[in-house]
């Protein structure tokens, strides 16, 4: 049954991706890409990676939708028709996909107990976390305590990016208004 649910979700994701390819109205494409993120979040939930799923939903369906809509407000709402069929991008995509699928052949199967992720340091972390930090959730302890500086750096990067985007969007809108006032 697990496999069946995964298959249905994958089928819907493929359908959505094909719809995004065929669509020329960019607003519909934005909504469809939000749906695509939600579907992949569902897939992560069925794989028990709930935190990854939540990040995917927040970034893919939340922030990306808003940013894409903001970009659409500044540019065009329709995609131009491609002038001619270009084989090189298709080739690059197919080759990259084939290499990625080839890469998964080496990976341990889902949930196997002797995969490197289970045997290496995970056991030590599980053992030491309650003693070292006193935080009941091990993932939180690793993120905020053992790798605190790492997380701090990531937060600074994301914050800087957000400030930059806000300045870009706000600055563009204001400049456009000033130009309009000048010409009117």
């Amino acid at each position, binding site marked *: 049954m697990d496999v069946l649910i995964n298959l*249905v979700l994958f089928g*819907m994701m493929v359908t959505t991706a094909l719809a995004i390819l065929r669509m020329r109205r960019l607003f519909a494409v934005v*909504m469809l890409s939000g749906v695509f993120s939600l579907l992949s979040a569902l897939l992560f939930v069925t794989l028990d990676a*709930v935190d990854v799923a939540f990040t995917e939903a927040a970034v893919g369906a939340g922030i990306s939708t808003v940013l894409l809509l903001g970009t659409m407000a500044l540019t065009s709402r329709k995609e131009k028709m491609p002038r001619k069929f270009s084989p090189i991008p298709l080739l690059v995509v197919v080759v990259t996909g084939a290499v990625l699928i080839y890469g998964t052949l080496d990976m341990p199967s889902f949930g196997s107990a002797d995969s490197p992720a289970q045997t290496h340091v995970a056991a030590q972390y599980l053992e030491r976390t309650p003693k070292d930090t006193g935080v009941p959730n091990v993932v939180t302890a690793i993120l905020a305590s053992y790798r605190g500086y790492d997380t701090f750096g990531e937060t600074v990067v994301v914050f800087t990016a957000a400030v930059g985007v806000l300045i870009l*969007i706000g600055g563009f809108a204001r400049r456009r208004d000033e130009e309009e006032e000048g010409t009117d």
Partner: protein
Amino acid sequence: MFLVATIALFIGMCLVLARLYAGPSLYDRVLAGNAFGTYTVLFIGVLGFLMGRPEFLDIALLYALINFVGTIAVLKYFRYRSIGDTSPTPYGEPTPVGKLKDRGARS
């Protein structure tokens, strides 16, 4: 029983996807996107019970929040024609629907 609910949710998702692809007006698509978010919330809840892990219900609540904020952002885009700056129309005065198309075509 949860299996039947899951199948019903899948059928509903397919219908919503079809509306999102075909929907003639923008508002059909906004509504379809919002409905798909709701289906996500429901599916995570049902999946929790189906897999014997009812604590997924808490996660489903978070998805409801994301869906709400996303829909608000899309509707705000329609009202003010931009996300970061709301100066084109003052607060409390929505752009008339007839004008929306002109503004969209210009920007």
